[in-house]
């Protein structure tokens, strides 16, 4: 029995989960494949339902990470507790929350940089400018850092297209459509778009990290 949707009772799903878990522990070479077949889609669907506006690439990454974590350490699942589906959903949601928190932090950092820059601009030629000397010094440091980021970005980008993609990445843009538009692949299916966009994002992230590592 290899269901893709669990229309049966919870009991049926629980029994299937226990059976697959035992087969995985018993080193059955087919167990990991059967678990992927039976559970990846329901986990992904559960994430889609709960996070309808989140980038599907993030959702699928979280679902696959939960699967790999479980297959790597099956003992982390206790069949006496929740069902395997419940366990995988919880694990995937944990991964997703971590990924979202990371993105949020990154976005907040960029917003706070913009705020500091705007503040320093608005107090220029102002009688109380003196009070902001310290703040301006900080701003200069930040601007220098941003200039370095921009330089890194320019060096990491081989083409004007890469440059535009990097700009989107650095402002924390998560929507696949935004990248798909630049890549002119909007006529492809959403899944193909996600795949291509992810490949570009990964490539550029690696390149940017390499550039930044050369400075650190």
């Amino acid at each position, binding site marked *: 029995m290899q269901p*893709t949707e669990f229309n049966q009772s919870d009991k049926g799903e629980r029994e299937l989960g226990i059976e697959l878990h035992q087969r995985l522990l018993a080193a*059955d070479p087919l167990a*990991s494949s059967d678990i*992927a*077949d039976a559970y*990846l889609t329901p986990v992904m669907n559960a994430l889609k339902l709960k996070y309808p506006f989140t980038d599907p690439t993030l959702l699928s990454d979280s679902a696959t990470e939960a699967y790999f974590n479980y297959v790597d350490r099956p003992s982390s699942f206790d069949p006496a507790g929740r069902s395997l589906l419940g366990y995988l959903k919880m694990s995937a949601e944990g991964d997703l929350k971590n990924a979202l928190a990371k993105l949020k932090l990154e976005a907040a950092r960029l917003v706070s940089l913009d705020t500091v820059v705007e503040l320093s601009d608005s107090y220029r030629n102002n009688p109380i400018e003196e009070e902001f000397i310290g703040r301006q010094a900080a701003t200069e440091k930040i601007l220098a850092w941003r200039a370095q980021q921009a330089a890194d970005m320019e060096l990491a980008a081989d083409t004007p297209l890469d440059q535009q993609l990097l700009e989107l990445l650095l402002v924390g843009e998560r929507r696949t459509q935004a990248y798909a538009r630049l890549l002119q692949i909007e006529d492809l299916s959403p899944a193909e778009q996600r795949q291509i966009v992810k490949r570009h994002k990964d490539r550029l992230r690696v390149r940017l990290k390499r550039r930044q590592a050369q400075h650190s």
Partner: protein
Amino acid sequence: MSHQEDSDKSKADLLNLTRRKAANRPFFLAAALEIFCQLEQLDQAGLAAYLKLEPGQLDLLGLCRRPDSTTPAAFQRDIRLICERFGIAPLQLARLLRRVAAYEALQAAPPTLNNFLMAARDYEEEPDE
């Protein structure tokens, strides 16, 4: 595209993504299949043809655990189970895995042995212009 077709495609995409990620994890058969493809310069269609499978079957095949080669009995058992499920000729899969294992052993060998093996290779003369 009907709802059912759409759902089947999403599932196939997800399994394909997972199999591609599994190619970096030695636990999975996907990792051995990836090495074999590199050695034989095969794409996924070529690999499917080699194993006499439909390309769509490669994802679930790749997500199987790589057969345990620590003992001949365990290796035979794993090969039999996988081949029965996917309808692959056992000898074909066993050959593929032996080829990959030989390559991995060579990669893991100390550099001096690698040099020795390189020196022992037949010298191929350049073809005459």
